């Protein structure tokens, strides 16, 4: 009986040892098998020599030496294991995960094909990129984003009511983009083309947080998803640019100019497919690769802070008012967006329980200097908006955005300050940002749906 117990205990010890081994990235499960066989050989021999299983195990483990040493030696031979590689389909060792990732791949291919088909479908009805550029400008996100939302909803097995809402919202977007009698050169077309993507992206967000759309954690995940998606998309766009350049120049060398193919097929099809592929990549690589957006924010937060402070100092030093040209408001809106992005992506990567540190103070400085600049700009504009140009869709939209961002950043600055002074927990800041997402959505929809009639389709 005791022999039996001894054996059980020995097995438990082996299991525990295996766990330690498997935590090492340098050691694969097959290495663990091999080393375990070695350890068992050693134990068997020691037991045969008269030791108890317990003692034999201890001695055998001791002989093998420290796992640190062992993994270092393995890493020298298998240095590639320190780099995490993207596994497109499976080979993770577990058959369940393998089938799942293969199904994901197929769903992605189908959705990307759908997106490509939708971008080319209008051409069947005689709408060409050259003559109907305004149609494509208004609708380009409507070709790709529904498919990305479909992929995400499929992946999360969204329930029927949610799918209904998603379909309804995309239909509403299509109506907003096409139902109003907007002239091709009107400001409203431009305003709609800018705001519809924002509105629709947040619909994609709804698909993303399908399982629990109220949860701030899930919304934060969507913010992370957005950052990573954007980076993958930009990387693919760069790759696509290189591909087009090679295609164009090599074919040109043999007297064929593939300009039509590139601008009518490669570019639109590639861009819409990339929207879905980027979403799939983020989902597939979520746990494999370190999130890159927070890394970039870490790099650029100090640089942006320095640039904004330098600008403020220069304004005070020269006592030169900010010259507000027609487009200046948009520029400063973009500045606020960048600052908000820097804030959001550092929040997304921060350990909520860590105490306030130097970086938080740096962020406060960034946000406060952005606010100061924006207040200067608003003061400058307040005098003009009423008299010079009157209110136009462009101006009203830009001003609305400015107010929304200003409110967000002002309250963020306050929360950051109280967090640094240890009055509020970090979670308050996170909740404020995730809770603010519907505000952006509401504003984007208002601009898209209400502005054109409000400004009599100007």
């Amino acid at each position, binding site marked *: 009986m005791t022999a039996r117990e001894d054996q059980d205990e020995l097995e438990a010890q082996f299991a525990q040892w295996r766990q330690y081994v498997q935590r090492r990235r340098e050691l694969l499960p097959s290495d663990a098998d091999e080393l375990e066989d070695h350890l068992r050989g050693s134990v068997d021999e020691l037991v045969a020599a008269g030791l108890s299983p317990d003692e034999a195990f201890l001695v055998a483990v001791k002989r093998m030496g420290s796992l640190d040493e062992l993994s270092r030696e393995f890493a*020298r031979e298998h240095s590639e294991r320190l780099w995490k590689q993207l596994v497109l389909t499976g080979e993770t060792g577990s058959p369940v995960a393998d089938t799942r990732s293969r199904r994901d791949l197929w769903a992605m291919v189908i959705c990307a094909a759908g997106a490509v088909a939708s971008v080319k479908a209008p051409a069947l009805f005689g709408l060409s990129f050259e003559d109907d550029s305004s149609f494509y400008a208004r609708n380009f996100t409507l070709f790709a984003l529904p498919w990305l939302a479909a992929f995400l909803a499929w992946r999360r097995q969204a329930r029927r009511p949610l799918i209904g809402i998603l379909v309804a919202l995309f239909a509403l977007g299509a109506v907003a983009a096409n139902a109003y009698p907007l002239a091709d050169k009107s400001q409203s077309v431009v305003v709609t083309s800018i705001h519809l993507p924002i509105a629709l992206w947040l619909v994609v967000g709804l698909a993303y947080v399908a399982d629990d759309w109220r949860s701030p954690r899930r919304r934060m995940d969507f913010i992370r998803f957005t950052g990573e998606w954007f980076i993958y998309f930009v990387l693919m766009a760069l790759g696509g640019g290189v591909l087009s350049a090679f295609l164009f120049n090599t074919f040109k060398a043999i007297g064929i100019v593939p300009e039509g193919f590139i601008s009518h097929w490669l570019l639109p099809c590639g861009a819409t497919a990339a929207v879905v592929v980027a979403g799939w990549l983020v989902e597939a690589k979520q746990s494999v690769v370190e999130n890159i957006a927070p890394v970039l924010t870490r790099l650029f937060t100090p640089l942006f802070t320095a640039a904004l402070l330098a600008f403020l100092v220069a304004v005070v030093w020269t006592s030169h008012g900010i010259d507000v040209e027609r487009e200046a408001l948009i520029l400063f809106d973009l500045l606020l967006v960048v600052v908000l992005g820097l804030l959001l992506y550092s929040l997304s990567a921060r350990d909520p329980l860590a105490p306030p540190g130097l970086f938080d103070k740096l962020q406060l400085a960034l946000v406060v200097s952005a606010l100061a600049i924006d207040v200067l700009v608003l003061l400058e504009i307040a005098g003009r908006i009423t008299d010079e140009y009157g209110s136009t869709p462009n101006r009203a939209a830009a001003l609305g955005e400015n107010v929304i961002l200003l409110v967000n950043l002002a309250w963020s600055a306050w929360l950051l300050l109280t967090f640094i002074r240890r009055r509020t927990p970090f979670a308050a800041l996170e909740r404020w940002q995730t809770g603010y997402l519907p505000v952006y959505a509401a504003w984007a929809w208002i601009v898209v749906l209400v502005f054109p009639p409000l400004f009599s389709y100007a």
Partner: protein
Amino acid sequence: MRSVKVAKDLVAASATPMVLGILAEDASYGYAILRRINELSGGELDWTEGLLYPLLHRLERLGYVESSWQSVTGERRRKYYRITEKGLAELAEQRRQWDTVVDALKEIWLGLGDRGPLTAIPLEGGA
């Protein structure tokens, strides 16, 4: 007999021909290879697992050995290594190199032996 501690560099340099040589006798697995080395050196060569397994994986990558999994008892699996044609050629090459080195060393040891003061180095076993 005084125990000899073989320097780490020398152990590393001789590791490949030793493993290939053992595998040339017959296919084997990690633990048995380690036992065999221990036996051959009279317990003087102290190899670690951190030396042996990465080396076996490297030899496999270079195509000198090939491996296969065989089940032993219960769920226990054992990875057997077998030498390949390429491995045999490499072994022959390494052997030529080692013969050269060993021959040269022997000449030197013998030469020193004639001279006198260093006769304390016994060539074989006890004096």
